């Protein structure tokens, strides 16, 4: 916990991206498993604890600190969890502080009713900075200016592995990322996604500025309308049909209508829309569906979902990604003509 607390503390005060990168790389190099993997998960938003933290803290603080003094302190510091980290009265000299691994495992596996007792036990054994980091970790929002992308870039630079290779295996990995660190430190094989139903990194779209247009030869490009939906990846690998958002979130449960019709063996790239007949409904209609984790029969009927396909990443065992887009597009069109999957279409040039 001490190393993790020091890392968070330095990151929070360090403005430069390159300096953050160095702090992270030093941490990954010097911290053993599984602690560094849990830290990576915390930094890339892969750790969530469903806890009524505010209530737990209120219950812990009330009997320990005079409410007037707590109020004055809170007003001065400007942040409740930081205030608690600073004035927590119970510190036990010389007691062994918890490891990050102890904390994460206990929070993941323990019963919610045990959390207040555990938390006060940990707070007693940590120094100020450790208490601050622990409470930050439990809120689930570290806010130290590290994006998931920057964390992966650090792993790439630190290990000399191309970033794309890490992105490729990332969605098949789970915290505390033992297989990943084994591979990156040269002690293990690259973790293989195989044909598991995981999100595959895709090529994101970027805005073209007016000044860019002059430098572009139309013969080098294909174009697609910008539809009013969200970019998705639809896949059916290993017998498990899935729908992912462009950041890799699994949204299958919200869209059973498009997921159930996906033929086996494919990974497809396209735009998720609500469509009535041949008409693309406004984005607001799609939002009615996106807001819900599970959908009712009447929602499915009044807001029918549909995918307008752009690209194909896998067909059966063939990984099409090394091929040029024109070849992948030809495969997509041929496949679509033969398979005729429901609730999908392709816009072809007239």
């Amino acid at each position, binding site marked *: 916990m001490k190393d993790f607390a*020091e890392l968070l503390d*330095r990151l*929070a*005060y*360090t*403005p430069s991206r390159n*300096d953050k990168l*160095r*702090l992270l790389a*030093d941490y990954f190099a010097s911290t053993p498993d599984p602690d560094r993997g849990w830290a990576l998960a915390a930094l890339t938003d892969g750790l969530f604890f469903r806890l009524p933290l505010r209530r737990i803290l209120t219950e812990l603080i009330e009997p320990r*600190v*005079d409410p*007037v*003094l*707590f109020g*004055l*302190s809170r007003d*001065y*510091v*400007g*942040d409740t969890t*930081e*205030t608690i980290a*600073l*004035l927590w*009265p119970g510190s036990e000299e010389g007691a062994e502080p918890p490891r990050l691994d102890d904390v994460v495992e206990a929070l993941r596996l323990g019963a919610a009713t045990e959390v207040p007792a555990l938390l006060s036990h940990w707070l007693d054994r940590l*120094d*100020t900075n450790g208490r601050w980091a622990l409470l930050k970790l439990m809120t689930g929002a570290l806010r130290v200016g590290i994006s998931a992308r920057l964390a992966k870039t650090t792993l790439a630079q630190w290990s000399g592995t191309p970033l794309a290779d890490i992105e490729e295996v990332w969605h098949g990995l789970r915290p505390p990322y033992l297989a990943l660190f084994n591979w990156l430190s040269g002690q293990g094989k690259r973790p293989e996604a195989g044909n598991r139903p995981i999100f595959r990194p895709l090529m994101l779209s970027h805005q073209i500025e007016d000044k860019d247009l002059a430098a572009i030869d139309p013969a080098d490009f294909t174009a697609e309308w910008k539809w009013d939906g969200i970019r998705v990846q639809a896949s059916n690998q290993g017998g498990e049909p899935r729908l992912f958002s462009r950041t890799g979130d699994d949204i299958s449960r919200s869209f059973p209508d498009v997921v159930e019709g996906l033929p086996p063996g494919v990974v497809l790239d396209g735009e998720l829309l609500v469509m009535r007949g041949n008409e693309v409904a406004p984005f607001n209609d799609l939002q009615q569906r996106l807001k819900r984790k599970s959908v009712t029969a009447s929602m499915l009927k009044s807001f029918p979902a549909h995918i307008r396909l752009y690209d194909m990443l896998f067909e059966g065992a063939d990984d099409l990604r090394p091929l040029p887009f024109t070849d992948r597009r030809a495969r997509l069109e041929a496949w679509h003509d033969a398979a005729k999957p429901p609730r999908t279409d392709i816009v072809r040039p007239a």
Partner: protein
Amino acid sequence: MTEATFALPVFSHGDAGGEVAKLLRSLRQFPERAHVIGVYGLGKCQRLIAMLRAAGYHEPIYLHGALATCCEVYESFGVRLGALKAATSASRDEMKGAIVLAPPSAIADRWSRRLPDALTGFASGWMRVRARARQRGVELPLVISDHADWNELTRTIKETGAGEIWVTHGREDALLHHIQSTGRRGRALALIGREDEDQ
């Protein structure tokens, strides 16, 4: 009569040695950046130098001109501070990865632009609160204070056995509350023009 600079329970100053270790670790991590640390000229400056020497740091320490005189006074009384150099006459290259001490007002000022990729720190009890450190634009806050913290203030009040305490210089409200809730009489003594002297 007591001062009340750090009279809130959030101020309990830990082991300053840990803060010196933090500075030395940062020097190893960022050896191309000059570490410019804000220090008060009388006391804090010499204390930090002495702690660095005690921690085994024997490289020259570079000083802002305003700090030199006080250091000479200490040395004239036999306090050994090791190799000290004037930051103004040193080359940029020579100060890469070096410790440079300057008055708090100079660390975010034009003055520090002469330093190679300055990483700014500040050795002060105020650095314990994140909003205060961010306000100063500090990258390396070092919680090193020569003032009494909350525990020392409240312990001393108890030890004196005084029945009436006058509180001045800083935040009176929390300390007065503490004094009154422990059955003593407390009064705020405002010294006009002397509030927040250290900020």
